[in-house]
């Protein structure tokens, strides 16, 4: 038995899935003040009547960290930056309590400017005087050599016992200092609360005598064991759209180029599948207007859903952004998007007469024809969705390219189908697909695709390895330290790949998902000959190995 729970902005969905059939579906309003209780009540409801069944796995997609980041209530950490030469320090001043210190590492990991002892002492005084309890230490090129970050951490911990510290290289190991400092800052800010949450969940589960695997769904559509998620709170943001997209992948199970539209009450989330695989946001997840190193699906949200109310604006029919109540056909007093489609296409949803009546009433009030009014709203819905879809295609097609073959071959999104999930998809997606002249697919269980997607998603893992045979060092992102290469002149791409494979196997074992290591594929293989004078001085090799988002091995589709 698998359980998937997705905490959404309005509702929390849960499913109980036996590997073939959905046995239970639950939807409860989300209590943002107490997400833990919401999760537990969904958990209890989906298990009702099946408590004796063996649970294999629970996967949670939660908004705990997202909410923490959205509110101002949480204590602001300090941020120690070691930027060295480059952009002006003023371009990093987007958080309070920033301390700049001297020191610099270059792109090859060489120290080009030393830390200054007196500055570190001064730093301690400042941190103490401002009673900072949490701090992130981030250096430019710390991914190439974390020595400065580590030295600062050691010094601060000696001087201020109990200080909670995150260092950049351990939070984010790819290039991009700005994203690294943002990711580290938000990590140290939320990790305490996140750890509280995970231990509360563990406690509640043990009270219920549940001892199965518990995983967290990440923004990249992969899962991570709850036990080891403590230091990576940022990975859990935006897992809602990831759950929906993975749900679409699970319900479709085709190598297709598709648009996935998850139409909810007042928002529609749009994501893309390319040859069956979800597309990632090229710049990482954006939190509060800042790019981060958190890998997330490219998702575009449109403020439009089945419950979006039809309103008059400057004498013209338009859509309201805030949900007022449910659609008229479900007993609401005001016509909504669902009512418009219900009326125009005789969909017979709920009380179809109410859809008509509410629209007629609004039309009468404003001396309009009900058909014109409805058609106008329909066009607004399609125009907004279509515009968002086309922008996503264009963004993907116009992503920068750094190799000749990438430019020569170009990119064109050839759309095969639109997959509609979420409660509001049924009425809207088939007609949108017709307009775009492609197939529509509204899978069964689409209304709980998010929770279903969560419970059948597999872990994602990745290792980035960099070898600089001229300096004689190799490092991987998740180990953080630089190791000497034994015989650097003989070190080849194949050696780098095999080291990366070892490293990924080790990582998989640590996370209790050893069996997935064999699924890994190389997504990056770069090799540069370093020429100094006119002869070879060494090589710079970078390889990346990953287990991409996908479905657990045992999953073979959902029976109706």
């Amino acid at each position, binding site marked *: 038995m698998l359980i998937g729970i997705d905490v959404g902005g309005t509702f929390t969905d849960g499913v109980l899935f036996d590997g073939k059939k959905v046995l239970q579906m639950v939807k409860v309003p989300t209590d943002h003040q107490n997400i833990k209780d919401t999760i537990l009540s969904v958990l209890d409801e989906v298990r009702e009547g099946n408590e004796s069944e063996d649970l294999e796995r629970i996967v949670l997609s939660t908004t705990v960290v997202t909410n923490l980041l959205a509110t101002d209530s949480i204590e602001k950490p300090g941020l120690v930056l070691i930027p060295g030469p480059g952009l002006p320090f003023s371009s990093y001043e987007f958080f309070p309590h920033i301390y700049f210190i001297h020191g610099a590492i270059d792109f090859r990991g060489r120290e080009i400017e030393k830390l200054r002892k007196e500055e570190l002492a001064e730093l301690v005084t400042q941190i103490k005087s401002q009673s900072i309890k949490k701090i992130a230490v981030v250096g430019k090129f710390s991914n190439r050599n974390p020595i400065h970050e580590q030295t600062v951490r050691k010094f601060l911990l000696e001087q201020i016992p109990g200080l909670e510290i995150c260092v950049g290289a351990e939070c984010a190991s790819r290039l991009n200092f700005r994203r690294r400092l943002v990711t580290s800052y938000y990590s140290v800010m939320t990790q305490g609360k996140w750890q509280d949450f995970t231990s509360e969940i563990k406690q509640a589960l043990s009270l219920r005598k549940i001892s199965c695997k518990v995983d967290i769904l990440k923004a990249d559509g992969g899962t991570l064991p709850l036990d080891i998620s403590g230091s990576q709170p940022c990975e859990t943001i935006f897992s809602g759209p990831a759950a929906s997209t993975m749900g679409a992948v699970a319900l479709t199970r085709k190598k297709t180029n598709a648009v996935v539209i998850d139409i909810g009450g007042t928002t529609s989330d749009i994501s893309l599948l390319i040859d069956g695989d979800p597309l990632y946001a090229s710049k990482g997840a954006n939190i509060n207007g800042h790019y981060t190193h958190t890998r997330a699906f490219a998702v575009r949200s449109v403020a439009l859903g089945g419950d979006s109310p039809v309103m008059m604006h400057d004498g013209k029919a338009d859509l309201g952004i805030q949900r007022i109540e449910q659609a008229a056909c479900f007993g609401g007093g005001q016509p909504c998007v669902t009512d418009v489609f219900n009326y125009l296409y005789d969909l017979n949803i709920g009380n179809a007469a109410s859809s008509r009546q509410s629209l007629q009433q609004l039309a009468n009030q404003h001396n309009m024809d009900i058909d014109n009014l409805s058609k106008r709203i329909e066009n607004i819905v399609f125009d907004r969705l279509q515009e968002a879809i086309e922008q996503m295609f264009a963004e993907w097609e116009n992503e920068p390219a750094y190799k000749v073959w990438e430019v020569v071959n170009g990119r064109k999104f050839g759309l095969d189908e639109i997959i509609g999930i979420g409660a509001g998809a049924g009425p809207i997606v088939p007609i949108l697909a017709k307009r775009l002249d492609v197939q529509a697919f509204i899978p069964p269980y689409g209304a709980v695709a998010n929770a279903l997607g969560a419970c059948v998603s597999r872990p994602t893992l990745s290792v980035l390895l960099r070898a600089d045979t001229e300096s004689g060092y190799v490092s991987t992102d998740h180990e953080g330290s630089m190791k000497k290469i034994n015989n650097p002149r003989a070190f080849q791409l194949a050696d780098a790949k095999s080291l990366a494979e070892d490293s990924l196997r080790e990582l998989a074992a640590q996370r209790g998902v050893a069996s997935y290591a064999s699924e890994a594929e190389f997504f990056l293989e770069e090799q540069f000959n370093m020429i100094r004078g006119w002869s070879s001085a060494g090589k*710079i090799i970078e390889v990346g190995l990953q287990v991409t988002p996908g479905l657990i091995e045992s999953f073979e589709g959902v029976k109706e």
Partner: protein
Amino acid sequence: MKQTGVIFFPAFDWAISPTHPEREERLLYTRDQIFEEGIMDLPQIAELKPRMAEPKDIARVHFCVPNVEAQATDAHLVAAGSALRIADAVMQKEVVNGFAIVRPPGHHAKTVAHGNRGFCNINNEAIMVEYLRKNYGLRKIAIVDTDVHHGDGTQDIFFNDPDTLFISFHQDGRTLYPGTGFIEEAGGPLAAGTTINIPLPPETTDVGIHYVLDHLVMPMLEEFQPDLVINSAGQDNHYSDPLANMNFSAQGYARLNTKLNPDIAVLEGGYSVETALPYVNMGILMAMADIDYSNLREPDYHQQHFKESEKNLTYIQRLVEKQLELFRGRQALIKRNREKHRDVFTESERIFYDTDYIDERQNKRLTMCAECSGLRTIDSTAHHQNGMVNRVFCISIPMHACPGCLDAGKEAYASMCKMGQMYEYIYLQNKFNDEYRSFHVKTETEKVL
């Protein structure tokens, strides 16, 4: 927000040869630096995608022997196309200015292209200039070549074009490739004074180069009033460049771009891949995007090591005076040339292709037209290293040709196609009608772009 467009195209899968300076590694550390800085994430920067140039864009500038495909590989088309993409973005006000950090470079590629010289096959800036004129109706354009090597290709292409002000400062040709760029090279008879060369002594520093900028380049631009300013942005004036001997710094390059305020910058040479390029590229980008670059410096830069010598400065001052005088007297010079050369001006030139070892001889002819910049023909013979000899005849009709030169050009092409048996190809570059013909004499087949 006003944005600066950037195309970063390092061509990580292209090299002239594995150990050549123009190799995959060239922009690797620049990639590391600009990506680590996260400058592409800033709201004032828009990273644009490269595209490919069309064969016709190339033919508008070059006579490629035997054809465009032979001289412009996919990598060249992407580098040139990236410049065109930036040009479109600037002209369509998508961005306020733009920097194409692309390779392979182009400023040594001349009008006739038999092969690669000075690491260049086709001239990215020249292709962009003619594209801008064709597509956006621009006329007066200034190109400031800040590469340490004389921009002899660009000079050759615009030598007879009075609407292009080509300014190149570089290490003196007596001490560095390509051995040209002397003050006497000042434009063809009908475009005298719009090619301005500033050969600088080795070891010139920020002080010397900024003296040239303040007292010569900026005043000339002020007086010329171009529709667009292009920085042909080589980075090998840098003190760490392995192929040259100048003492310019990243700060110096950044300040140069602040002053010059180019609409478009296109990367040219620069082979100090670790110690210059990451910092100079950042500097140019920051200057163009109006980002404070006071914190930008090379790890080993110490200002006190780079003092301009009194001797250099005196030389530079005299040079600046002389060249400003040349520029300001250009109308009188053209008038004198008309009297002196009457109907036709002829000259010959010998051109060496260092990369591909080609020895080319040209006999050039210019109609001294009273109405336009004149019809040009080039009779070009190239001796390749393997003994192959290519002789071609090239006819160029200017974009703003008078009816007389237009007809004469077409007639010359028609008659050469009939009678030019000693040539392998006859080419007609008709910029007036934007039509480019090539005729293979042996098979009598014609191609039109």
